[in-house]
């Protein structure tokens, strides 16, 4: 079997799987076994997708959410980067604080939302804060691990050449740290997206999360599916983009 035919077979299988899924969905929608509104017809969802994506409302809320995520990533990422470098560079600090970061990193950050609301109010600031503390941990952990794994020989070579500290940073630390930093930000991005959107569904009057919960309370199911499809597509694309950036040398 040559490569093109197998690629063709994969493509055909994908098309078959997709159309099978859509057919089962449509059958479920028409069977009347489930509440009709829970599983709306594919046509209704496609219609809602077109209406949602062609209106300006969606994009203005999307802009809010994207701005929140960007701010969260900038603040939490910068703090995580700094903490990771400090903690990773010094053995005593690493032994003391890396376990703390490791274990706190695995806790649900959403429960901090009431605290963030008390501190920063019900506006975009509390979502930014929630996203920031969420992405702080993966960035800090990844950077700290990266610092630990820098080949000590490179550092000794740099020192023996009496490299100035900015030279050490540019020639040794930065190239070695690129991958852990990018990877930390990739993980942080995914978590910040979830935290920000969930925060919006809990309490907000702007953003995509708010639109989802609005579709839920008005029981507009096709629109809710359309919004979820859009959110999934955007976040998968963003992750693919960052992953590609992580792979290029």
């Amino acid at each position: 079997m040559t490569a093109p035919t197998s690629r063709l077979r994969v493509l055909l299988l994908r098309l078959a799987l997709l159309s099978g899924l859509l057919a089962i969905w449509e059958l479920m929608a028409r069977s009347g076994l489930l509440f009709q509104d829970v599983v709306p017809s594919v046509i209704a969802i496609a219609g809602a997708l077109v209406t949602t994506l062609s209106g300006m409302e969606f994009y203005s809320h999307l802009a809010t959410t994207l701005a929140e995520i960007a701010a969260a990533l900038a603040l939490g990422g910068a703090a995580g980067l700094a903490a990771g470098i400090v903690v990773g560079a010094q053995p005593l600090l690493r032994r003391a604080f890396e376990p703390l970061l490791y274990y706190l990193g695995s806790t649900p950050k959403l429960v901090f939302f009431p605290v963030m609301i008390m501190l920063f109010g019900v506006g975009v600031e509390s979502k930014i804060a929630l996203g920031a503390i969420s992405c702080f941990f993966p960035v800090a952990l990844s950077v700290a691990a990266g610092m630990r794994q820098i080949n000590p020989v490179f550092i000794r070579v740099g020192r023996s050449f009496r490299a100035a500290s900015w030279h050490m940073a540019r020639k040794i630390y930065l190239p070695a740290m690129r991958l852990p930093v990018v990877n930390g930000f990739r993980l942080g991005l995914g978590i910040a997206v979830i935290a920000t959107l969930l925060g919006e569904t809990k309490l907000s009057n702007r953003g995509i999360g708010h639109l989802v919960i609005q579709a839920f309370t008005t029981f507009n199911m096709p629109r809710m599916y359309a919004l979820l499809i859009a959110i999934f597509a955007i976040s998968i694309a963003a992750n693919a983009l960052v992953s590609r950036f992580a792979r290029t040398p």
Partner: protein
Amino acid sequence: VSAQTAARRYQAAALAFGTLAALGLILELLIRVGAIDRYTVPLPSDIIPAFWRVAVEEGVPARFLATAAETLAAGLLLVAVGVPLGILLFSVRLLRAACETWVAALASAPIVLMYPLFLVVFGRSQATIVMMGFLAALPALILKTLEGLSSTRPVLLDVAKSLKLHHTQTFMKVLLPAALPSIFSGLRIGLTFALINIVGVEFLINFGGLGQLVNELAERYDLPGTYAAIGYVILVSVLLFYAMDRMERLVRPGA
């Protein structure tokens, strides 16, 4: 050497706890002199007794059990669905070629955001919570199962071939044991994910165990209680994470 290691470990632990205690003290002072509003951030000295009060008055043990039961249910679903799906993708090469990138893409999607959908189907119930924990963690376990099976050392497969083992035997005696450490690490990641999402959904839909407790105390404006409840959430997830870590080390001595 081991005495030195122990001394270093105590030194590190003392530094960590000392720093946390110092931060608590500084916060207490800042609130007491009025630099931080005490109606925004409660006094640390008020939070400590709140742990006991919340535990007794709000039934923390029962809530802990509710959250644990949900996590266990999600974990059982994960193993029952995730591992077979991973095996299926491994066994049917064409299916894997078609679907692996889809599963990987789903692993990076905010699946938990689908909770309003499950609210419509299951209502505000434990079913919604368990389903969200399960679905959010599923892609990770599928991928880890697949990874474990694919990274079986070729030598072992050659041995199976030379012993003329048939498919089921090769699978049960060679592939599955070789993949177990990776499956277990998928389960560890998956359960951590599941717990995070379960507590999150409890908080969001105001139903169930510890997540609801945080929401309820926050809505009652009981600030020390809210902080104590958050403390319990952190405690439970750290305990689960630590236990899973330990178990993984048993299964996978090198990790």
